[in-house]
């Protein structure tokens, strides 16, 4: 695991030096603007507006980073041939892949943690003092992080066998499809043949169920998130992520570099 950690720390360093964390400035400005504006125009719903806006921004910014940097993690190394010298060291290809994944997840965690602090600051500007229900935000952020980790894994999988452009398209496409996995599973329509329904249901179980990780609505209205849901989602993300990464490692371990 030492090799994985060495690659991960370097990936984090790359993200920092490539100014990935600069998005925090945008987030800070958004939150400050929202806090000032919401305080003036909303009466009684400041908290839910700020929380919804903040969590959506955390999620969207995170998805951008996960998709675009996730795809580049492997493809950039192959294009620039920085991988050549590295793979000639005593490093297994799966260790490189896992290290890159871990490095970006650490970057996303730091980024998300900083944005969460910003969100709490904005919240404290419109609401004094913070109450116990405000801490449900952390649970929502944790679930967003799980979702982002899964997106990174998918982006890396696609970048192992296709061009960066197609990998971005596939990742975004699968993310959007994953948002509707639940609907696909429970769909009832009289106009669709039972065999087609069964096929849809089968596909829905293969798709990553991203809607599972969305508890923004509940948290924005101060409702708690059941512990069991958090546990199930954690297990789901770990299992699904592990399968995606294992498939990526299998493809990458036999890939001929240019």
């Amino acid at each position, binding site marked *: 695991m*030492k*090799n994985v950690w*060495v690659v991960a720390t*370097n990936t984090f*360093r*790359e993200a920092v*030096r*490539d100014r990935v964390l600069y998005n925090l400035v945008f987030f800070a400005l958004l939150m400050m603007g929202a806090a000032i504006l919401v305080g003036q125009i909303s009466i009684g719903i400041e908290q839910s507006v700020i929380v919804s806006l903040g969590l959506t921004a955390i999620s969207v910014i995170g998805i951008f980073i996960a998709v675009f940097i996730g795809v580049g993690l492997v493809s950039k190394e192959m294009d*620039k*041939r*920085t991988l*050549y*010298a*590295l*793979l*000639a*060291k*005593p*490093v*297994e290809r799966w260790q490189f892949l896992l290290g890159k994944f871990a490095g970006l997840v650490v970057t996303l965690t730091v980024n998300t943690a900083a944005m969460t602090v910003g969100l709490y600051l904005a919240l404290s500007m419109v609401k004094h003092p913070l109450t116990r229900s405000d801490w449900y935000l952390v649970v929502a952020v944790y679930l967003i992080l799980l979702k982002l980790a899964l997106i990174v894994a998918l982006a890396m999988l696609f970048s192992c066998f296709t061009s960066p452009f197609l990998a971005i398209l596939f990742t975004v496409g699968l993310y959007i499809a994953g948002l509707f996995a639940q609907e696909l599973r429970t769909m009832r329509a009289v106009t669709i043949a039972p065999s087609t329904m069964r096929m849809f249901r089968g596909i829905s179980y293969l798709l990553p169920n991203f809607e599972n990780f969305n508890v923004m609505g509940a948290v924005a209205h101060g409702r708690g998130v059941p512990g069991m849901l958090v546990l199930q989602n954690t297990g789901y993300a770990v299992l699904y992520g592990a399968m995606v990464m294992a498939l990526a490692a299998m493809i990458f371990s*036999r890939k*001929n*570099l240019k």
Partner: protein
Amino acid sequence: MPGAAIEIEKLSKEYPYGFLHLKKKRSLEDLSMQVQSDEVFGFLGPNGAGKSTTIKLLMRLIFPSSGTARILGKSIEDVSMHQDIGYLPEQPYFYDYLTATELLEYFARFHKLSETDRHERVQKMLKKVGLETAKKIQLRKYSKGMLQRVGLAQAILHDPQVVVLDEPMSGLDPLGRREVRDIILELKKEGRTVLFSTHILSDAEMLCDRVGVIVGGKLRGVGTPGEMVGMESQGMEVFFELHGSGQAFPLLSRATNTGERYRVEVAEAELYAALDELKSAGARILSVTQLKPTLEEFFMNLVDADRAQANAVDVSGK
């Protein structure tokens, strides 16, 4: 360490191409050869001959279509083999957001080195490749030659037994090439095995115990540079000086000159007669040298033969 450091057996590589990847292009064909321990082995061939393909196969950057290879007795599939191997890729490119020190520290962490040892070696290598003053500059500001030096430093950083260098002189100025040559000779002196690819034949002649020539994906010969080109003399070269217009003599009509200095080629059997002729004409003999074919001529003959064969196949195909 006695025996072969690198053993290659019937290594072939085919690349699929075409819309459905149904066609295959063979870039390496049944390559078998050995590089002995402690020797400097030059891998020669024109661009696209299969030199880099062979090296990439050895470094498991690409996978063979058939055949096997072992380095230091271990299969190339065995990652642990890389503990004792150093590799410099062709036209190396590294993480440009790192400084040379950071890059070497990063690579050193994959080897079994203590922290103190790691720091010491990094500093030593930076000094060895002449980058001590630029060690804190990000690699994005480095020239091609400087990157080549960093590449060389990371290849020998962990004191490997076998060093594989893909075109190590490419992109270097004369001074840089001299330094790389010195490093290769130093590695040889320390008893390391060095395999390097090049198309600069003078470097191979100067450094290699043995060379292998590859053209069109096929190994055309392995031996010492002398063996490869043969020791047979191609004649004698005589330099002489002749003052004034003097009297014309037969040898003078065959000579070329720069001012009063002349050069003429004669057969080995005619040498003494030619020297007598020059003496009686009042010429001063400056030097007499045996003419031998160079590695370059041998190499060019192979390339020409390969091209002629390829053209013949094209024509018969039409």
